[in-house]
């Protein structure tokens, strides 16, 4: 077979390897085996010599025949054309690019950058180029000459405006160029870099998860700055901007109201201090920074809270970064606004795969008395009395439900203590319905907790035992 393949290859006249020259879908159309076979006379696919060459390859690589036969028997892919063209010495365009990506480095938000990518044709026939897609806000130009003659070079220019109005950060934009080079039918050009604004907070807000009503707790955010001088804070406050859950009754009056000053929050205080110099130095372009600490002021009302942190600072007007020279410091200074969010909870909580937090019940559902059932919950204790909590089961409905409380364990730095609750409905338990419908009230587990403010904890349980 090898000999036969080589023989055929040797005696075949050199084919003209024709690549579709159109710049839309056609030239990158896959060339299925059956289609090649059906269009022999049209000279649109791999030539007879190529086929014979592939046959020779198969013969030569019987040991690794699986992969090769797959290559023949499934649609050929573009990349695989490279293998085929190695057997062809026919004319073809050949695209050579010295670069396909360019890094602009740092750009101020709103700045424009352009870069030209040279495309050289080292092949024998003209290289055709056309525009594919670009990422949003990225434009391509320089493609007026869509044909590059053999031996010539043309430039493709990408222009990008750095995310006007948006935040700073890393950017990358790409542009797809379609070509008639059979080895490189698609070339993706890429530009990248970092944009920056005058200041950049991280995280974007301050969040207190499961904040206890009587806890004094703190959370931090940092604000990196990019002015010529380090920032000087002129004022800092947490305002009670948004703390009222939607109320359909309160639609207000059509009064001729004045814009009211939003009051300070009674629940949070804030302070700002210069950020560690080493941290500032680790951020490219940063010239200063603030570490903002927000602290809760108990007692806090239960439920969700949304407040707003406002930090006003100045770069002392001695000029801003040269890159941002067009930006003027606002009168009164820059104002950084960050949301302060919290959900305020009680000292005891329940968690687990079957715990429905929205409805505050355990969802077990129907259980077969033949198989029984078991699951695991956790009770957590927070706050100053957490170590006084020693839960004990004092009631179970249904009574067949077994509840075993495991050893207490402190989580992390000990601010929270957890107790595992192993719950089981043993096989053979009597049938019952505690699904919370008219046929049966919800079941429950009642714990004596030892917590002075919450001596009992009732955990509703939705469960039924069926035959």
């Amino acid at each position, binding site marked *: 077979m090898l000999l036969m393949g080589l023989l055929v290859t040797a005696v075949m006249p050199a084919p003209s390897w024709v690549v579709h020259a159109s710049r839309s879908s056609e030239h990158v159309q896959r060339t299925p085996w059956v289609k090649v076979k059906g269009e022999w006379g049209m000279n649109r696919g791999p030539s007879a010599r190529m086929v*014979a060459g592939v046959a020779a390859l198969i013969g030569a690589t019987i040991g690794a025949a699986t992969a090769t036969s797959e290559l023949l028997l499934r649609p050929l892919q573009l990349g*695989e054309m490279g293998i085929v063209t190695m057997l062809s010495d026919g004319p073809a365009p050949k695209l050579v690019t010295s670069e396909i990506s360019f890094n602009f480095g740092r750009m101020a938000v709103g700045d424009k950058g352009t870069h030209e990518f040279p495309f050289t044709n080292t092949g024998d026939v003209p290289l055709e180029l056309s525009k594919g897609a670009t990422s949003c806000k990225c434009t391509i130009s320089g493609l007026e000459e869509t044909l590059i003659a053999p031996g010539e070079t043309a430039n493709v220019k990408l222009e990008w405006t750095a995310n006007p109005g948006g935040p700073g950060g890393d950017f990358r934009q790409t542009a797809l160029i379609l070509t008639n080079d059979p080895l490189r039918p698609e070339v993706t050009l890429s530009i990248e870099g970092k944009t920056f604004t005058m200041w950049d907070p991280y995280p974007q807000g301050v969040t207190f*998860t499961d904040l206890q009503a009587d806890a004094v707790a*703190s959370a931090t955010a940092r604000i990196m700055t990019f002015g010529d001088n380090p920032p000087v804070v002129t004022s800092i406050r947490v305002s009670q901007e948004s703390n009222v859950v939607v109320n359909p009754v309160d639609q207000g009056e059509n009064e001729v109201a004045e814009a*009211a000053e939003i009051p300070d929050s009674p629940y949070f205080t804030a302070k700002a201090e210069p950020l560690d110099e080493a941290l500032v130095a680790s951020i490219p372009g940063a010239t200063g920074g603030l570490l903002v600490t927000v602290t809760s002021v108990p007692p806090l009302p239960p439920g*969700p809270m949304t407040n707003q942190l406002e930090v006003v600072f100045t770069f002392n007007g001695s000029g801003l970064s040269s890159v941002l020279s067009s930006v003027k410091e606002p009168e009164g200074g820059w104002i950084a606004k960050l949301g302060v969010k919290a959900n305020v*909870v009680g000292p005891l*909580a329940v968690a*687990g795969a079957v715990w429905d937090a929205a409805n505050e019940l355990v969802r077990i559902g129907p259980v077969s008395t033949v198989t029984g059932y078991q699951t695991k919950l956790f009770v957590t204790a927070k706050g100053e009395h957490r170590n006084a909590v020693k839960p004990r089961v004092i009631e179970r409905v249904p009574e067949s439900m077994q509840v075993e409380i495991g050893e207490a364990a402190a989580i992390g730095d000990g601010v929270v203590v957890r107790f595992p609750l192993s719950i089981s409905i043993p096989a053979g338990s009597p049938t019952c319905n505690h699904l919370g419908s008219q046929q049966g009230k919800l079941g429950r587990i009642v714990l004596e907790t030892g917590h002075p403010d919450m001596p009992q904890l009732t955990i509703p349980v939705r469960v039924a035992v069926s035959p």
Partner: protein
Amino acid sequence: MSFAMLPPGGQTRLAVFCAVLAIAFCPATANAADPPKPLPDRGPNTNDAVAESMRQKNGSLFVGWRPPQALLLITGELNGYIEPCGCAGKENQKGGLSRRQNLLQAVEAAGWPLVSVDLGNQVRRFGRQAEVKFQSVADGLREMDYAAVGFGPDDLRLPAEELIAAVASVGDQGTPFVSANVGLLGLDAGITPRFQVVKAGGLTIGITSVLGDTEVESIRNDSLEMMPAENALREVAQALSKAGCDAQVLLSFGSPEESQRLAAAFPQFDVVVTAGGADEPPMIPPPLASKSGVLVELGHKGMYAVAVGLYDEEPAARSAVQPVMKTASGRPFLTQRIPLDARWGESDDMLRLLGSYQKQLETLGLQGLKLGTTRHPTGRRFAGSQACASCHESAHEVWEASAHASALVTLEEATPPRNHDPECLSCHVVGWVPQKYEPYEGGFLSRLETPHLAQQGCENCHGPAAAHAAVEAGDVVASEVERERLRAELTLSIATPEGRKKAVNNCLECHDLDNSPSFDFDEYWTTIAH
């Protein structure tokens, strides 16, 4: 008669004969009768024209690939974007769970052994809606049979009881969620494992995840136990090394620089997936500093997936620009950036999941979602667009003919309807803070409670007009000075640079890059000029 003397057609026929002969006698072609399986380069529920147009727009996929021994499919940083919103036409947007599932199904249909992993950060906000969304996404990831899912910082800001309800094992179903350095209710609570070992295509793949140290510092959630990423990896890497893995994957939710540092400290990881970086991931992921393996960026908002195809031996076929890389143990692999565009079509399973999510939002309502309200900076209330119509007739006619006047209807008629979703409502009714997804005091609540504030109306640009309308109608007595002041406050003219800037910024609150990527003020203004 020599071969050269054959006519062209005869040469061809002989060549085909040779090829067929070679194939027929080749023992390895016993399964040649099996129809070739398609490449996983498009979804099942889309037509050829859409698939071709997306290919031309965003590039071809898996060019030159032969079936890998196993395919690692990597997603992450969904950041709450469970679907492209469709404001600018879904075909112009990328991302969404629905397309993602079709991608996974296409890979399975191609017969490529699949391991799906997700970096984490399914949500980006805090509150009840984010909790419901996290639960929905976790359900979706289980349904898509993910092998490993990490945590992002916004996931971990949610209450622990919500996280546990969404991620903990139920019965015999294990959890795909994994973290080496974050433990819900403690690292020893056993709610999520510290690493996973999975098998695919005869390969054993070890996967773990960490939350970067900078992110750890930014989270204040006492119900979590967190430790420095490097310390945690020191413990987990040892166990992974003993698992006899053919490839090891680290899902590192930190900056690319932080992830590279971890990769250098633990060269056993062949694929290190990082958070951060640009919105658009690189076409070809860069190698790790250790020279073997690769650093995978995913971009943001779940718009892209990245595939890593692992091979037993050097892939025979590849395109000129697709380098073959190698794992620490010398196993070759190829990578492919995959845009989740319209070529993938919609999946029924995920559309059902999205429908269920929207239904939950409807059931909870705005009060059940515990939305806060924000006082409008002017302190004023809203009157509704109809109140403007009696005096501003021509402007009202322009508005009625615009898409703004049916903004809420668009949500109501969507499949599934989105008119109970605050993240959609905020730009489709009067009196909401667009980027905070909350109503102003006195803003739209529902068709029943505030019918006059339905649709995107006049006051979202001009400001609350209740006082102005009341004065003009004679319902409230005001001095001429006061009357003029109220009029002036609602005037917005694009004739001056300041006015134009204010108007453009106002438009951008809703016509942002996510929802209106083609927005151009001058072009769009012509459709509502008044």
